[in-house]
């Protein structure tokens, strides 16, 4: 595949950004839910 490093870099970057974003949302939600569930 021509330009293979660029192509893989593009796909990896996309997966990394979306993965990090989703992980951030979910972990922050968990943290807040834990805190507001305290009496």
């Amino acid at each position: 595949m021509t330009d293979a490093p660029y192509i893989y870099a593009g796909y990896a970057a996309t997966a990394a950004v979306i993965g990090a974003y989703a992980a951030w949302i979910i972990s922050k939600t968990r943290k807040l839910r834990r805190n507001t569930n305290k009496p």
Partner: protein
Amino acid sequence: MTTSTRATRILGWATAITMVLTGWMALVISPADAVQRDAVRLLYLHVPTAWIAMYVSFGITTLASALYLWKRTRSRFWDIAAGASAEIGLVFIGLTLLVGSIWGRTTWGVWWTWDARLTSTAVLFVTYLGYLAVRRIPHEPLARSRRAAIVALAAFLNVPLVHYSVEWWRTLHQPASILSQRRLGDPQIHGVMAWTLLLAVVAFTILYAWLLIHRFRLAWVEEQAEEDALAIAIAERHAEADATPEPQVTS
């Protein structure tokens, strides 16, 4: 503790499956392009993120902002939806610029060029960055929501103005040639490539929906937490006041 519900579990699986399929189609099954060769595979990421950000994400932000401003439909739901959708849109536009830049490096040999689309997209990115900045004004929740909604509507007005003026500006300077940037940006897609692109658009749309629900919930919980913190602080002030004895006036 689980943050998923039936809806997000279904969407989550759908996202995973369509994304894997898209990756397989994009990287393995679909052919290289005649002109730009394998670089076209990056477009299966670049185009969907651009379309969904512009037409779905920011479209929903605009709509939700309008509904929030209109008295009859005003509710926290619309304000939070507008913000959540815009943030996801911003992430997608960031990806559009990133992947677009990599694609430009392989086809045009440069990481950036002042081509009409890249330029308008960069302005779009900063525009919605500003919108999110308004949503994050510290300490002033009353001001935030309404002003943010108005900024969202203004942003919607601004997008075509920017697009048209930049487009016109750059076409005046763009010499036509076989390898011109315009043509490389619009490959004749047909057959397998068209299906791959369609699949990619579907996959990213489902991803957007999944992210939207999660981000909406986060914003909702954040608001709850802010209100709770405020209520606790007020209660503490009251407790302080009750505990302090009134100064006695001695005659």
